[in-house]
């Protein structure tokens, strides 16, 4: 590799890092929006909790806290996609296309920033949760942080798919809400698997338990209850997230390529 090529590669890495930084800085600028989204999820969970246990109990609280963490991570990771969508509508993507960063670099930066956004938000919530659920103050909890990153990268991939299908209009928000309803609703984030099993056939129940969000929430609950964590679950989450990451890269690449070719998406 020539010196010029090396300089180009280093510069492009730096440029990708800067794009990632901008995405993340937006994340901190829209913290109230994410807070609102999480508050909505929490209110849903409280209603669900009151309905199926008739009252709040410490057991439900232990169940409830990991759910809040996962829903916060979910909202944060998908919010990066919303900002990419705004960028497509406001011409920021065209600005990026004039800067020394490749289409692949741009796609990668957006997905990784979704990963970091989800990790940061999830970790902050986890930090707060440790105060209320002391059993979470365990070295194993630290192992959950990379899990947040992997899952959030997968969610970043979903955000890229949403950007592709929403065609740069205002539909992203609607589609993201739909995905949230399906992925969080069809998981054990809100309801224990025993409750779900009572209403759905075993095939659906199995699918719900395999949902990566169920796996993350389950891992957190295992730690909170001092139960062993499932390595199979980790593997499943990793595999699903890698696939979603790759699909997301292809989707963003396609979207940006389209903007380059026709001037808009």
């Amino acid at each position, binding site marked *: 590799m020539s010196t010029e090529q090396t300089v180009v590669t280093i*510069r492009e890495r730096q440029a990708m890092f*800067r794009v990632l930084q901008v995405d993340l800085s937006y994340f901190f600028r829209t913290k109230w929006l994410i807070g609102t989204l999480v508050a909505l999820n929490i209110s849903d969970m409280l209603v669900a909790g009151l309905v199926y246990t008739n009252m709040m109990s410490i057991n439900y609280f232990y169940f409830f806290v990991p759910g809040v963490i996962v829903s916060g991570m979910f909202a944060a990771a998908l919010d990066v996609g919303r900002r990419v969508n705004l960028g497509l509508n406001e011409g*920021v993507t065209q600005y990026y296309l*004039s800067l020394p960063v490749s289409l692949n670099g741009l796609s990668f930066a957006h997905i990784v920033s979704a990963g970091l956004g989800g990790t940061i938000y999830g970790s902050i919530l986890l930090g707060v949760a440790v105060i209320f659920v002391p059993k979470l103050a365990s070295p194993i909890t630290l192992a959950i942080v990379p899990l947040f990153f992997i899952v959030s990268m997968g969610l970043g991939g979903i955000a890229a798919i949403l950007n592709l299908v929403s065609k740069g209009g205002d539909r992203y928000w609607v589609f993201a809400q739909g995905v949230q309803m399906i992925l969080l609703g069809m998981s054990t984030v809100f309801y224990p698997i025993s409750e779900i099993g009572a209403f759905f056939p075993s095939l659906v129940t199995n699918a719900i338990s395999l949902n990566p969000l169920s796996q993350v929430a389950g891992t957190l609950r295992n730690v909170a209850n001092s139960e062993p964590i499932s390595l199979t679950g980790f593997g499943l989450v990793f595999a699903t997230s890698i696939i979603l990451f790759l699909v997301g890269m292809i989707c963003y690449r396609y979207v940006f390529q389209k903007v380059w070719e*026709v*001037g808009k998406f």
Partner: protein
Amino acid sequence: MPVAKQSFDITSSEISEQKEEEFAVISTELSKDYGKKRALNRLNLKIDKGQILVLLGPNGSGKTTFLHLISTVLKPTEGTALVMGYDIRREPLKVRQVSAISFQDPRGFWRHKPAQILSFHASMYGVSGEERKRKVEETLKDFELWESRSTKFMHLSGGQSKRLEVAKLFVHRPKLAIFDEPTTMVDLDGKRMMWDKIRQLKEEGSTVIVATNEVREAEYLADKITILANGEHLVTDSLERLKDSVKGGDIVDLEFALPIEDNLLKLVQNIQGTAESKLVSESRLRIRVNRSEDWLPIMTDKMHEVGSNRITSIKVAEPSLDDVFLEYTEKTA
């Protein structure tokens, strides 16, 4: 379009003697379609390094499309261009490293502040640390944005956001600086300041391309002017030569001591280069000529030969760039 073709040919024969490295941009058959509409049609243009080229053209003439193509914001439908030797199709990343564009509509991160936006832009081009901090501060002050440095982009006025858009290119000084209507929405003082900054950029070694609708801006900035219309390249030349190319563009007002007689009027009309003559009063004649500097010596010689009526005053007016612009664009309308 005989005039346009002739003028372009003069330029091409001149530039054909130059080497490829001497050009900042060489576009070859560069075309862009939006659906079925052709926005830019087979544009062949060579832009010298170290000069300011102004793109003039009516709305929809293809100016912005051309700028977006050479800054790799858009992909050509046909043809290509070399920017500082790099192909916009095959080496877009390298093109982006040597060029930068200031968009017609300011593009920024809505919730960021001007200082952050400039800092991000500089960092993308490898300006780092203290140097970045210094350049950002200096540029904010130069563009009178220092007071609004902590205002979010979405709360800036139209003029401020336009200044910020232009200021981006001054934090890293690219080899090729591209400005799309840099002073729209900016007040008169601001325009002057920005024009001076753009000229300074050229003096420091950058090649500059400016697209504009403002003739005054073009006159102030241009080393060469390219006129586009309907996606076609009409002409590229210096302002002086473009003015000379307007047939009957110079206006000569002659005042005589005595009333003008028919034989004198015929004599003037028969001088080579006279496009049109008109009696303004009994002793005053207005003549449109192609090149007043060629026409006047011939006219004074003839008057001397006749010697019957003395000229008391001569006033010469050159065509404005408006006249040049209309001359070329009306031919394609």
